[in-house]
């Protein structure tokens, strides 16, 4: 029973995929095709689940260990990981909350700033493109280089170690998500359908009209492209920035601490928690994208 409940999130995602695929392949979905789509949906759900269950069975029966040459100490059995999660639920939840706050706050600020930058670059291309080139260079800077710098810079922000660590971590996520969003926002605001801008001009549309009625709607799919990168990215940034943070809290930090202490089973419990968090956020994003972009693709 426990094993099956851990399979729920992929199920949720594949439902979303099935839904979007259906939208793409057939926007009208005639009633005659209903049954074919049901079969399609079923296999979309079934195949990954069967595959996952197979891996889990191999794992629990230790066949996987033999294939990989691992032992149950470094690769604990799924049952044991779940027991540890159940036993330490309040502590794990507390750490998960800290990580989620960092990831989501950073994502929010980063995406808003990034979109703003994209807008500025699209409105003032002369200076904006140069700025975006510089910003996109940030994309290539490893997080591990940024996290300790921001950590040192925010030392004076508050006397409470938790608060100032939180700020440093949020800043790391903000920086990283901002870059992704700004580049995609700029592309969405400028890569218009051929002649659509000329059409607007032939209507004698004002620049503000072109902006709000053509550019902004055009940028929405690009916005989701950016989020598809930055939602998982924000979780990973949060996890990595926790490694360097002063205050010991968060899922990422617990993974590291437990590995250092050679408590692999507990580390695995936190790894699973991190995976579930990422999957949950991604599922929410896909649901939002599915409902907002309905009929647009």
């Amino acid at each position, binding site marked *: 029973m426990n094993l099956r409940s851990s399979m729920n999130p*992929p199920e949720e*995602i*594949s439902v979303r*995929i099935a839904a979007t695929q259906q939208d793409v392949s057939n926007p009208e979905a005639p009633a005659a095709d209903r049954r074919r789509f049901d079969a399609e949906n079923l*296999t*979309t759900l079934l*195949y*990954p689940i069967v*595959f*996952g269950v197979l891996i889990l069975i191999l794992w629990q029966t230790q066949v996987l260990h033999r294939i*990989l*040459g*691992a*032992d149950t100490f*470094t*690769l604990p059995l799924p049952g044991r990981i779940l027991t540890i999660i159940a036993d330490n639920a309040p502590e794990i939840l507390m750490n998960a909350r800290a990580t989620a706050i960092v990831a989501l706050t950073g994502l929010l600020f980063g995406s808003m700033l990034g979109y703003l930058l994209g807008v500025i670059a699209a409105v003032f*291309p*002369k200076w*904006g*493109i*140069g*700025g*975006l*080139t*510089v910003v996109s*260079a940030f*994309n*290539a*800077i*490893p997080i*591990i*280089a940024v996290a*300790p710098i921001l950590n*040192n*810079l925010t*030392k004076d922000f508050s006397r409470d170690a938790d608060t100032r660590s939180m700020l440093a971590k949020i800043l790391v996520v903000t920086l990283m998500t901002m870059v992704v969003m700004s*580049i995609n926002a*700029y*592309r969405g605001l*400028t*890569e218009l359908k051929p002649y659509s801008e000329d059409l607007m001009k032939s209507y004698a549309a004002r620049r503000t009209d*072109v902006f709000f009625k053509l550019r902004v709607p055009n940028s929405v799919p690009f916005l989701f492209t950016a989020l598809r990168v930055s939602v*998982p990215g924000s979780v*990973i940034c949060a*996890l*990595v920035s926790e*490694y*360097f943070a002063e205050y010991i809290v968060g899922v*990422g930090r617990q*993974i590291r601490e437990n*590995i250092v202490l050679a408590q*692999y089973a507990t*580390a695995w419990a*936190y*790894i699973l928690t*991190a*995976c579930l*968090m*990422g*999957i949950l956020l991604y599922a929410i994003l896909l649901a939002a994208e599915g409902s907002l972009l309905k009929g647009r693709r």
Partner: protein
Amino acid sequence: MEPNRKQDSNRLATFVWVLALILIWELGATLVAQTKRTPENVLPHLYQIVESVFSTKLVNGSQTAFQIVLANAGITLARAGIGFMLGAAIGFLLALLMNLMKTVEKIAFPYLMIIQMIPILGMAPIVLAVTKDIDKSRVIIAAILTFYPVATNTLAGFKAVPGEKLELMHVIAASKFEIYRKLLIPSCIPYFFTGLKVSAPMAITASILVDTLQGGGGLGTMLSQSLKHAMTIYVFWQIVFLSAIVGILSYHLMSVIEKLAAPHRWARKVKLDEPAQLDEPA
């Protein structure tokens, strides 16, 4: 259009932005220098970092700070490079398989997303336990990080081929192989390179991150040692700048390879890297 003048003005804009960033850094450094007892730990002046690169003072008995950084960078980057190439190849093949066979796509797609969620450092000990070799685990983790963006982007490239083009290929009775060779694979190349551009810096990040987990050589090991003040803090600052520069260069290296691989597309396509081609709304 005067492409040369436009390009120049864009270069100028970039240059001015870089200058502005340097100015902000220096202002911050000046402020920190006045308020902190050990300003080099928080935000040193840029010239101090440059100075430390050229300093001939031996830091650990036999090497200067910059020699340490370079020697360790070689170790880390070699692993990142091998992992990157492996990951790119696997990613492309998987995308191809997913597009060829619906079943593979259905099985693999949800897991492709989940792989991205697994924190890399968490996977390091398990990979280490399997391979019993820190070098191999660095390569494998860099490969895993590369493989995901490449696979998803390439798959998106296959899906983005307009239906009319596919229909045309069917109308002229092109074989499946021909469709892939002449339509699908050429049109997914820009997407493939997008994936490479995303993952090249990530592979480097992964390699450095795995370094921090264990002793031995590598940029990550030196970074954490320097942060713990086991050696001069300027080793840390040099690594920060070196990893940033290498990350950026790796991105541009992919653009250069893309240009060489698909020059005709490059000529027409509007790209952010090539601001000269962007049209200003007149």
